[in-house]
């Protein structure tokens, strides 16, 4: 398995996922400051973005898609609820929350753009944060006691927002980010992440 990776990017999510799943993988560093991308990367990632993954015949990009793929394929019932478990629906709903709600809502707020919460799929920044906090509703993880790939997506969003200063003053989300950081796999991913 090959992971196309760059330091300080969303590729961290895929590394953390691979560490949680205990999988063997090779890291292919991509120089994101270069103007061109290798054809090898472009074959997996049409926009030349990281993370991208190659696993046998599978070539794909996007951190959320990669986490979903790996969880269902290599840690079913553990890092992803099985297809017929009642938790499956909420799990998928939260898998879409980082790319579909957290990221666009944060970008919109940072750019100071007019927000139309009833038309925007993500509502607006305040609604997004409120939904996220209520989703956790006093639990450790987004599905309750159970840690899943959805926490990798949401947790890494929280960690990125914290480091970029966009995480609102939310004790719930701060505590969630800390819980994520306390995981061995997250620590391993962070260490590999900076060592390069």
């Amino acid at each position: 398995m090959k992971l196309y990776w760059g330091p300080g990017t969303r590729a961290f999510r895929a590394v953390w996922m691979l560490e949680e799943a205990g999988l063997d993988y090779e890291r292919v560093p991509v120089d994101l400051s270069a103007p061109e991308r290798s054809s090898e990367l472009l074959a997996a990632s049409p926009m030349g973005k990281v993370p991208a993954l190659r696993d046998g015949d599978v070539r794909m990009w996007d951190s959320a898609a990669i986490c979903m793929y790996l969880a269902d394929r290599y840690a079913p019932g553990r890092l992803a609820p099985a297809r017929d478990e009642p938790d499956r629906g909420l799990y998928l709903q939260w898998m879409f929350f980082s790319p579909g709600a957290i990221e666009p809502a944060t970008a919109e707020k940072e750019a100071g753009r007019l927000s139309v919460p009833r038309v925007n799929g993500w509502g607006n920044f305040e609604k997004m944060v409120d939904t996220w906090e209520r989703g956790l509703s006093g639990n450790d993880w987004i599905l309750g006691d159970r840690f899943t790939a959805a926490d990798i997506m949401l947790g890494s969003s929280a960690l990125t927002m914290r480091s970029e200063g966009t995480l609102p003053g939310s004790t719930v989300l701060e505590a969630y980010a800390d819980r994520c950081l306390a995981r061995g796999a997250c620590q391993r991913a962070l260490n590999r992440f900076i060592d390069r």
Partner: protein
Amino acid sequence: MPAGQARQVTVLASEVASARRLKLYWCPNTRANRVVWMLEELGLDYETVHVDVFRPRRSDELLAVSPMGKVPGLEDGDVRMCDSSAICLYLADRYGRGTFAPGFDDPDRGRFLQWMIFAPGVIEPAVTEMFGGSAGDPRTNGWGDFGRMIRAWEQGLGDGPWILGDRFTAADVTLGATGVLCKRFKLFRGHPALSDYIARCQRREAFQRALAVDRAGPKSLPARAQALAMSAAASLAWARKPTYRLLDWLRRPGEKE
């Protein structure tokens, strides 16, 4: 659909129908239509619960499945969830495995998931950003920008006919439904492959049935007024900002009375 596929779907569908009934929180002319289309493709039996999202009131029942008070929301036995893409993926995996969703160990699975993320995670934010008139940094934005989005989509489609080639999946439902809106806003000028793709989606029987469900649905006065404003915004670029402001203002009264 090849006969084999149809048979498999029917078998799975009857398994469900006897056990429980799917409940969809829905409103005509919204993203709920994607899920109706998906349900129609799967041949599932479902009940629609009308939510007039053009008015401020939201029931506790809806808020329990959809915390932002948005549609669509789904109830399937103990499963309660929202988000059109997540719902389509859930339904396709659960009731259309091997046909509308590649299985977990199918080599197409990765690309399928990548395209399931594309509508909510790439197309919607890229289009909104373009309409808003301020583009962020395409390198840090997960969606790149409008131009990169269109190129990736067109290239991914290749010769088609569907996003995974010969195989029609739930990813075509979410991409197709989003594409119908892009087409309405004339965003596919100079991209005939994408317009043709959307036309192919629109010709599907299940798509037509979903359209009929929307047309037959109740439409309140505010719903009609806003639909009108939206079509004006679709054809007249200068009408966009005032329309958005109007929609924003109408939304003000709060989610729940």
